[in-house]
């Protein structure tokens, strides 16, 4: 009886352990839910929208705001100008003097402040009204959705997410751009190579560019390939970068860079790069050092060896 109860308790223990393991394995999903529930979260979709309308025209669109948390809050909608600074496209939400403020063209078809219950998704429609006489081209704004945390003390954080509006005012507009090469090394000793290029929009309208970066070996085998899509705003240039991680230990590779610029494929001249890791050079350096050392030693021995006169040699023979 004792042995049997021992077996039963062993089985119970095993079953318990299995349940515990299952419980632990099932945890990540519920952990995330708990984390989300313990804080204020705000989600917006889409995060960017393309809009088109003629001057004096109107168009409409919508976005969704989701409260994935477990606490309801008041959500506030606002619109701000959108522009970028620098090659790295640092976003700015202020208007440059003398520029048209496209954020004033957006009108929400819902109250700008509303309560968003836990787990609720709110779809909000809006209208874009282009003023008459607006010059054709690209204009930019961002719609913000922001949660209003309850009054508290200390540092109170508001969370704000944006839907960037790429607005095209229809009409004749120059669409053009170019590619600029960034410098690539001819010899690379590292393990991750940054690959990049600059796309310049010299026209009056934004475009969505597709950048293709790849590396092929001397035999034509593709060792790396990346395709990236980015918006480029008019009269700006954008640095598009990716990283080729874990480059080959040794080899010669051709880097090809191209992009679709304002609807036209443009290609930069290919560049060859030699890859080698510094530690691979060590055996070679050692061999060279060894050869040089042996050579020097032999030379020294040869120089130091006393040269016997010819007559002395003759005497020895006799």
């Amino acid at each position, binding site marked *: 009886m004792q042995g049997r109860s021992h077996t039963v308790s062993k089985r119970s223990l095993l079953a318990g352990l299995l349940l515990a393991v299952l419980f632990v394995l099932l945890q990540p999903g519920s952990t*995330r839910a708990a984390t*989300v529930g*313990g*804080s*204020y*979260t*705000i*989600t*917006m*979709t*889409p*995060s*960017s929208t393309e809009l088109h309308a003629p001057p004096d025209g109107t168009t409409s669109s919508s976005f969704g705001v*989701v409260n*994935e*948390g477990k606490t309801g809050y008041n959500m506030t909608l606002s619109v701000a100008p959108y522009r970028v600074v620098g090659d*790295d*496209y*640092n*976003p*700015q*939400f*202020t208007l440059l003097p003398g520029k048209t403020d496209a954020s004033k063209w957006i009108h929400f078809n819902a109250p700008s402040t509303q309560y968003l219950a836990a787990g609720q998704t709110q779809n909000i429609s809006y209208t874009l009204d282009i003023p008459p006489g607006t010059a054709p081209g690209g204009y930019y704004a*961002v719609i*913000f959705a*922001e949660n209003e*945390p*309850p009054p*508290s*003390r*200390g*540092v*109170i*954080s*508001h*969370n*704000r*997410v*944006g839907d*960037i509006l790429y607005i095209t005012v229809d009409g004749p507009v120059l669409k053009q751009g170019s590619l600029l090469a960034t410098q690539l090394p001819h010899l690379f000793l590292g393990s991750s190579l940054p690959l990049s290029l600059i796309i310049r929009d010299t026209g009056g309208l934004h475009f969505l560019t597709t950048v293709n970066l790849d590396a092929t070996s001397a035999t034509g085998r593709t060792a790396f390939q990346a395709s*990236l*899509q*980015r*918006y480029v705003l008019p009269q700006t240039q954008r640095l598009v*970068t*990716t990283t080729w991680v874990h480059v080959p230990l040794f080899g010669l590779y051709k880097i090809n860079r191209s992009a679709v610029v304002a609807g036209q494929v443009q290609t930069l001249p290919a560049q060859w790069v030699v890859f080698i890791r510094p530690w691979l050079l060590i055996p070679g350096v050692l061999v060279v050092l060894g050869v040089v050392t042996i050579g020097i030693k032999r030379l020294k021995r040869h120089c130091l060896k006393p040269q016997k006169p010819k007559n002395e040699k003759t005497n020895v023979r006799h």
Partner: protein
Amino acid sequence: MRWPYQRKITIAAGLAGMSLLIIPAAASASTADTTVSSVISPVISLLSSSGTVNLNATPTGSGVQTIASDTVTVSTNDSAGYTLKLGETGVSSALTSGGNTIPAVSGTQASPVAETANSWGYRVDGVGGFGAGPTSAASNQAIASTKFAAIPATGSPDTLVTTSTTASSATTTVWYGVAVNTSAVSGTYTNDVTYTATAN
């Protein structure tokens, strides 16, 4: 005896002919293309760990410092990544309690400074001129040389993070610090800050 065979052959040939007529139709039906399209909308989400960071301090004559953190989490399926910024929600950069204030430090993200008594600020390890850190939480400790910056105005927020690919629950730890001495008037001080996440 031959006639029935001929009839059978005729019927078989007829059936074969019919099948030939039917098969192409059936074949063309089976190769009709069906395009399944699915548009995955770009989404961006932002959450901060608590909504409130408490910087409680019990001042001394020489001054004490309290440092606490907020964790900001961003997720986006936008392949261009995201940019996370931090700025003031309102016009004041000071911690305010009624008519009393604790002003922000004089430092900026590019040139942060160590806090002096009766000042407050933020820092993110490894960003701008803050240095690598790591920053640790502190409560009523002697004022350290850890560098802080003032939270910029709403219109010109500081960039905390910028990425170039999709992000799944990418976290950024933002540290807030306050240094006070006994000249700071007691009270409950607050300041509202805004984290902004946009797709790149």
